[in-house]
């Protein structure tokens, strides 16, 4: 009787162990960049930290791609 009870307890624990299994789904975590830090483009020798000047220069280049504003209509 005692052996039967021990055997039953072992079997029950093995069956229930399956219920504790973790979901086999990998949860992706974004890694952190491991390389060297980069400079901001306005920290270059051309702009010397003048962010507003850099943004103005980029905006002028951006707008230069629009030929509708470059061509004067009559």
């Amino acid at each position, binding site marked *: 009787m005692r052996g039967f009870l021990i055997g039953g307890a072992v079997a029950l624990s093995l069956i229930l162990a399956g219920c504790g299994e973790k979901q086999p789904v990998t949860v992706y975590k974004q890694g952190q960049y491991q390389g060297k830090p980069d400079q901001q483009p*306005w920290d270059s020798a051309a702009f010397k930290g003048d962010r507003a000047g850099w943004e103005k220069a980029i905006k002028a280049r951006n707008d230069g791609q629009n030929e509708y504003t470059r061509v004067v209509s009559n």
Partner: protein
Amino acid sequence: MARMKFLCDAERCIECNGCVTACKNEHEVPWGVNRRRVVTLNDGLPGEKSISVACMHCSDAPCMAVCPVDCFYKTSEGVVLHDKDLCIGCGYCFYACPFGAPQFPQDGAFGLRGKMDKCTFCAGGPEADHSNAEFKKYGRNRLAEGKLPACAEMCSTKALLGGDSDVIADIYRNRVLKRGKGSEVWGWGTAYGKPEKGAAPPAGAKS
């Protein structure tokens, strides 16, 4: 802050490969590496369409997600760059990229695959701006000179637009309204359809 993007207008691209040449010349890209290329669909048939393809600097870049050494980073302007000193040339980014942007020089012995090379949006890399090391590894840093990518600025028909997303989207919208057709922007949804990684969800958005 500007969010840099590329936009290729398939209605205007004439497959001249000026963008490819501009990129090659600007960065002295080695033989066999194509940071930008022109793809033509239905080549030779009436109504063929060409598009210029390179790294699109995706909002939620898959290359960044799969890199086992985390050598990718995104600048404050939204340009996806990488540190070649860390890259091990595994090629995972190539398999992850929907645009086939990562390139691998095979100039070593027995076709050894080198460190990954890709379009930098002419923004150089994590070396000192305008240094020899930056030019050798990543090419010229035009963004730090207040200029936009050479490919877009060189495009003769202005099919390829590159720059602040708001501005180029406005240019394109105006263009589509004027001509009354060709509103499909190839690759735009794939590259920029997902929200920025780490950005707060819009108010009222469901998960």
